[in-house]
């Protein structure tokens, strides 16, 4: 899950942690972007949960599969 800026990622992390939704902040994989950045990695099964948690709180830029 990609966001517009690092601060968005940090905000998303706070929300996900507060709701105990499993996730991990990782560097954006090279095949997705060559820019430095971090994103949220999660199990596909809980995508809805995460989207619901972040709805109206943090804007999600893009969701890409980890292994293209």
């Amino acid at each position, binding site marked *: 899950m990609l966001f517009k800026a*690092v601060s968005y*990622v*940090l905000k998303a992390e706070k929300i996900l942690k507060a709701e105990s939704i499993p996730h*991990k*902040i*990782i*560097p954006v994989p090279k095949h997705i972007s060559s820019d430095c950045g*971090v994103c949220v990695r999660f199990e596909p099964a809980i995508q809805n949960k995460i989207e619901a948690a972040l709805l109206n709180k943090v804007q999600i830029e893009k969701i890409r599969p980890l292994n293209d």
Partner: protein
Amino acid sequence: MGDTKVVDARGLACPQPVVLTKQALEINEKVTVLVDNETALENIKRLGTKLGFAIKVETKKDSTFEIKLKRKKGVVVSSCSAATAAPGPFIIVISANTMGQGNDELGSVLIKSFLHTVAEQPQKPDTIIFYNTGVKLTVEGSEVLDDLKQLESAGVQLLVCGTCLNYFEIKDKLAAGTVSNMYDILDAMSRAGRLLTP
């Protein structure tokens, strides 16, 4: 090819046992190493894991250890890497639970990204040393535990400063790595061929 090369490293001082074993592993399918102390035993086991060898350890009656190493299929140990590599282990020192200075929130994100990336690289360090707030990354609840455990199972040695764990009162919460002391930490750092601290 079917013969086993025996390396008798009993009585030899560090790093001789590892150096001789590595040389033997480059050209032999099966190597048996004899050592007389636990430190050498652990070092050889880690070397074997790192290079892709199956390991079997037997404790002998005279308290020495016999380590049988067998090359797994498709594993090639390149000796040219020894020539171009630094003459000594590759060490990473994590001296804080943040990376860079000025902003801790950002620093926390960076150190986690850093360790995650280290865990993903094929060229892994030989040892990672943690001290001061760096030890906080090795205890229960740390967000990089999965990366640290992955590194450990790939043969990377994780040394965690005992004094620091003590100071932060988290010694009983250690979840990755082994508790170490200033002597071992200094020893590792001074032997390094390459030392990196983020």
